[in-house]
C-alpha cells in the first residue's frame, strides 16, 4: 500500500497561489469567443433595454405572455443605459459564455451582431409559420422589412423580425405659439417659418426649440430634413460634409446665435422648460408622449413633423427580435417572438405605455397607441414614409461620438460649420 505524500507547507502555499491565479484568470478572462456555447437554465432568456420606467411596461407584457403560455418559462433581463451600453453588456454576456436566447436589438447593434455569427437564421421558423409571419409583414411598413434585411443580414438569411420604430417629430405647445401669433402648419414649419416663429416667440421671452448634439435625436433630424445624412445609404461613405449638411449645421447654429434656442451644453431639461412656459417646442420620438404626460401638457401639445427645408425626412431606429445561435430553446423563443409580433402582444404593450411606435400599422393607428396621446400623434406613423435609418455601421458608436462632438462645436459657435464638418468627415473615414 502506498500512502499519499503529505503536503508540505511550501507546497500548500504554492498551490494556493496557483489556484488563486487560475481562478483569477478564469474569473476575469472568461472564455473568449464562447458565443457558440449553449445558454444555461431552463427559461427562455430575453434581454431587453429597459430603464426603471420601461421595465414596468415590459413586466406587464411578460406577465400577459405567461398567462397565455404557462408551458414556457420566460426570464426577462433588463439592461439599462444607452443602446451602445446595452450592446456592450450583451456582448460581454456572450463572451462570458452565457448567451441569452433572444436579444431585443436596436438598429445601432443589428449589423454588428448579425455579422459576427452570433445569431441563428430565422428562415426555417418563418417558413414553418408562414401564415402568421405574412399576417405580420402585411401589417407593417415595407420599409421596416426591407431595412432589416438590407442592414441586418450579411448573407441573405433573415436574422431579425423588425419591431417598433421611432422617428423624430416636433412637440409644440400651442398656447405659447398662439400668444406669440404663430400659426402651426399642419406639415411642420419650413426653416424660414421657423426663423419668423423664433423671432416672435423671443419677443415674448420664450425659446422656440432646443438645439443640441444627440446623434439620432438632434443632429440627424436636421440632416434628413435637408435631404442628407451622416453616411450614405450603404453606410460605407461619410456624407457629413455635404453642402446640405453644412447648410443644416449653419441653420441650427443660427437658431442659437439669435437666441431662439437655449445655449447648448447645459443641463436644462426641455420638457421642464416647456412646462415652465419658457419653451414652445421640443422634438422627440414616441418617448415624447411620455414626457408630455409627465409635464401634464398632453392636451396643450400638438405633434407635427420636424421642421423641413423643402424635403421631409426623419432619422428612424427600430428594434428587432432575433434568436441566438447558441440558444437551446429556439422553438420556445420563437413562440415569444410570435407573441411580440401579434396584434394582441403589440396592443398590450402599446396600451401599457410603450415608448416606441408599434410596428403593426393597425395597432399604431388604434386607440391602444393613440388614446391619451397629443393631437397629431399620427405624424409618428407617417414619418416612416420618408424616414432614413440611423446609420449604424460596425464602428457606429465611435462615429456617433465624433459627429456629436463636431456638431456641438458648431452649434455652440466655436467652430465654423464647413471646416468642422470637414474635420468630422476626415475622422470618420478610417472607421468605415
Amino acid at each position, binding site marked *: 500500500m502506498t500512502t499519499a505524500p503529505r503536503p508540505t507547507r511550501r507546497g500548500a*502555499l504554492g498551490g494556493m497561489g496557483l489556484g488563486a491565479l487560475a481562478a483569477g484568470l478564469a*474569473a476575469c478572462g472568461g472564455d473568449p469567443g464562447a458565443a457558440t456555447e449553449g445558454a444555461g437554465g431552463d427559461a427562455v432568456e430575453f434581454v431587453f433595454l429597459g430603464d426603471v420606467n420601461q421595465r414596468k411596461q415590459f413586466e406587464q407584457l411578460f406577465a400577459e405572455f405567461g398567462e397565455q403560455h404557462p408551458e414556457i418559462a420566460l426570464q426577462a433581463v433588463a439592461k439599462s443605459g444607452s443602446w451602445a451600453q446595452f450592446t*456592450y453588456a450583451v456582448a*460581454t454576456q456572450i463572451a462570458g459564455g452565457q448567451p441569452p436566447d433572444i436579444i431585443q436589438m436596436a438598429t445601432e447593434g443589428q449589423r454588428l451582431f448579425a455579422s459576427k455569427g452570433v445569431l441563428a437564421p430565422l428562415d426555417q421558423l418563418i417558413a414553418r409559420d408562414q401564415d402568421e409571419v405574412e399576417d405580420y409583414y402585411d401589417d407593417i411598413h415595407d420599409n421596416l422589412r426591407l431595412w432589416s434585411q438590407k442592414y441586418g443580414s450579411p448573407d441573405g438569411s433573415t436574422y431579425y423580425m423588425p419591431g417598433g420604430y421611432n422617428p423624430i417629430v416636433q412637440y409644440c405647445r400651442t398656447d405659447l405659439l398662439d400668444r406669440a401669433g404663430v400659426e402651426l402648419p399642419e406639415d411642420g414649419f419650413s426653416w424660414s417659418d421657423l426663423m419668423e416663429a423664433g423671432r416672435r416667440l423671443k419677443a415674448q421671452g420664450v425659446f422656440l426649440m432646443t438645439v443640441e448634439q444627440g446623434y439620432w435625436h438632434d443632429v440627424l433630424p436636421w440632416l434628413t430634413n435637408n435631404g442628407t445624412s451622416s453616411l450614405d445609404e450603404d453606410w460605407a461613405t461619410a456624407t457629413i460634409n455635404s453642402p446640405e449638411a453644412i447648410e443644416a449645421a449653419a441653420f441650427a447654429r443660427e437658431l442659437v446665435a439669435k437666441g431662439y434656442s437655449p445655449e447648448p451644453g447645459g443641463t436644462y431639461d426641455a420638457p421642464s422648460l416647456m412646462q415652465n412656459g419658457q419653451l414652445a417646442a421640443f422634438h422627440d420620438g414616441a418617448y415624447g408622449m411620455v414626457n408630455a404626460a409627465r409635464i401634464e401638457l398632453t392636451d396643450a401639445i400638438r405633434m407635427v413633423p420636424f421642421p423641413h427645408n423643402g424635403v421631409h425626412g426623419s432619422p428612424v431606429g427600430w428594434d428587432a427580435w432575433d434568436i441566438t445561435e447558441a440558444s437551446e430553446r429556439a422553438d420556445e423563443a420563437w413562440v415569444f417572438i410570435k407573441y411580440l409580433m401579434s396584434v394582441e402582444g403589440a396592443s398590450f404593450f402599446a396600451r401599457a405605455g410603450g415608448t416606441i411606435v408599434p410596428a403593426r400599422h393597425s395597432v399604431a393607428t388604434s386607440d391602444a397607441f393613440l388614446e391619451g396621446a397629443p393631437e397629431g400623434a399620427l405624424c409618428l406613423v407617417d414619418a416612416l414614409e420618408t424616414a432614413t435609418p440611423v446609420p449604424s455601421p460596425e464602428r457606429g458608436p465611435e462615429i456617433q461620438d465624433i459627429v456629436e462632438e463636431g456638431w*456641438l462645436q458648431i452649434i455652440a459657435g466655436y467652430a465654423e460649420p464647413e471646416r468642422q464638418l470637414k474635420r468630422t468627415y476626415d475622422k470618420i473615414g478610417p472607421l468605415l
Partner: protein
Amino acid sequence: MSAAAALPTPSPAAPSPGRPRRRDLRQNWLGYVFLSPAALLFVLFIGGPFLVAIALSLYSWDLLTPPEFVGLENFTTLLQDPVLIQAFANTFLFAFASVLTHVVGALLLALAVNALASRVVSYLVRTAVFFPFIISWAAVALLWQYMLDPGFGVITHYIDRIGLTPPDWFLDPAWALPAIIGIDFWHTLGFTFIIMLAGLQTVPKQLIEAAQTDGAGRRQVFWHVTVPMMSPTLFFAMVVTFIGAFQIFDPIQIITGGGPDDATLTLVMYLYEQGFQSFRIGYASAVAFLVFVVIMAVTLLQFWGARKWVHQQ
C-alpha cells in the same frame, strides 16, 4: 589585536539576508496566514487581470468572435494613433497641473491652518477643506455642471454681473480642461491637505526654535527647516497625486465625455471608449498597458529624483 580580528565573524548559523530559512518560515507561519487573504485578493483582482490584460493586448478581440493573435500589432497601431497622442498630452497636462496645484495649494493651506491659534476654527477649516473629498464624483460632477451651466449657472451669472463674458466652460476647447482641473482641485485638495497637515505636525519644534534662536526669519525657517523636514511628505503627496491624476476618469466621463473635440480626452477615457464602445478589447488592453508603463516610469523617475531632494532622517 589586528583590525581583522576586530571584525565580527559571521556565524555559519546566521541567516543570509536574501533567502529566509525554513526555520524562519516555521517561526513566521502566522504572518503568512494573515497575509494570505490580501495575497489572494491581489492575485484575484489585480495580478490575474493584469496578466490577462497583457495577454489580450496581443490579440484582436471584439468579444463576439474568438480572439485572433496579432502579436505586437496593437502596439504599432498605438504609435500611429493621432487621437492617442492627443489623449496622452491631455493626461500629462492634467496630471502636471494636478500635482502642482494640489501640492502647492495643500501646503499653503496646511501652513495657514497650522498657524491658527483657535482650535475650533482650525477644526472647522479642516472639515470644510476635507468635506468635498468625501462626496462622490458623480455628485460633484453634477453639482459643477449646474454651477457652470451656460444658461443659469451661478458662477456664470456672477461673472456676467461683474461685466466679464464667461466662457462656455465645457464647450470651449480652450476652457474645458482647465475647468476639469479646477473641479478636481476643489474635490481632491482635502486629501492632499490632510497629508500635508500631518507632515507639518511632524516637523520638530526644537529645530524651528533653534533656527529662530539663531536669527532665522520666517522665510528662512520655511525653506531651510520646514521644507526639508517635510520632504518625505511632499514626495509621497506628489507620487500619489500623479498616479491618481493619471487615472482620472469619472468627472470627465460624466461632464464632457472626453470632448469638446477631444480636449478633455484622457488615456483612461480613450481606453474606455476603445474597449467598451468600439469593442476593440485588444487595443484597449494595449492602451491599458501603456498607462501602466507610463505611471511606472514616472513613479520610478520620481523615486530616482527623490534621492537628491528628499531628506531622510
